[in-house]
């Protein structure tokens, strides 16, 4: 589990189980997935969260536009996202892995 930092801790047992059940032929594909670094996303959120850049990078385009048009949700959303963005990044990484294993 060298990629454990990319996922929520409570999801790790489920990911392990899923990987054990997965066919060996998918191993290379799983290894080649590039995950987003949660810490990097936090830094981006602190620096550019006001413009919704963090949400755009994750792929939440609608929320990014809403954040951009509202001055970062009047500044409140910007600050709230500093606490949420790491979890959201890990969720997104899990989704990416799930899609590749499906």
């Amino acid at each position, binding site marked *: 589990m060298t990629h454990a930092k990319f996922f929520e801790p409570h999801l790790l047992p489920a990911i392990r189980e899923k990987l054990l059940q997965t066919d060996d032929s998918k191993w290379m594909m799983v290894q080649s997935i590039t995950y987003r670094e949660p810490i990097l996303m936090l830094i981006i959120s602190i620096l550019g969260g*006001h*413009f919704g850049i963090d949400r*755009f990078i994750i*792929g*939440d*385009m*609608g*929320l990014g*536009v*809403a954040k*951009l*048009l*509202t*001055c*970062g*949700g*009047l*500044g*409140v959303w*910007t600050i709230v996202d500093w606490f949420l963005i790491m979890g959201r990044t890990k969720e997104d990484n899990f989704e990416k892995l799930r899609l590749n294993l499906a």
Partner: protein
Amino acid sequence: MTRKNLYFLALFLGLAGQIWIVYSYIKLGKQEEAFNTCIFNRVTGLPCPSCGTVHSIVSILHGEFRKALNENPLGFASFLMVAVIPYWILADLVFRKDSFYRFYSSFEKFLKNKWVFSCFLFLIFVVWLHNIGQFLHWI
């Protein structure tokens, strides 16, 4: 994002936006400035792309469309969002439909196209330059 999360967030944002606009409308009516909530503006002293949106919406409510366009063109998009989305979601909830969710999903897909997103960023950049130009009295 699930339908439930999206509806909760969009409804909350829409209603909060409406309250903020009513507050600003009253404040600006008394010739007072509304509280500046823009972190970027407070930190750098420069306006962000969406600074002036509330002024623009208040001008739209007064029927002064040219003034609204001059204050911030994004005000029109924000006005549409704040005026339409909460009621659209409420209608969806009442009639147990998911039309807004489907619209949101297709909008996200549309914006993920790199050309569309580049055009969007370019427009935002132009609006930002316009805002900075106004702030520095270039325009």
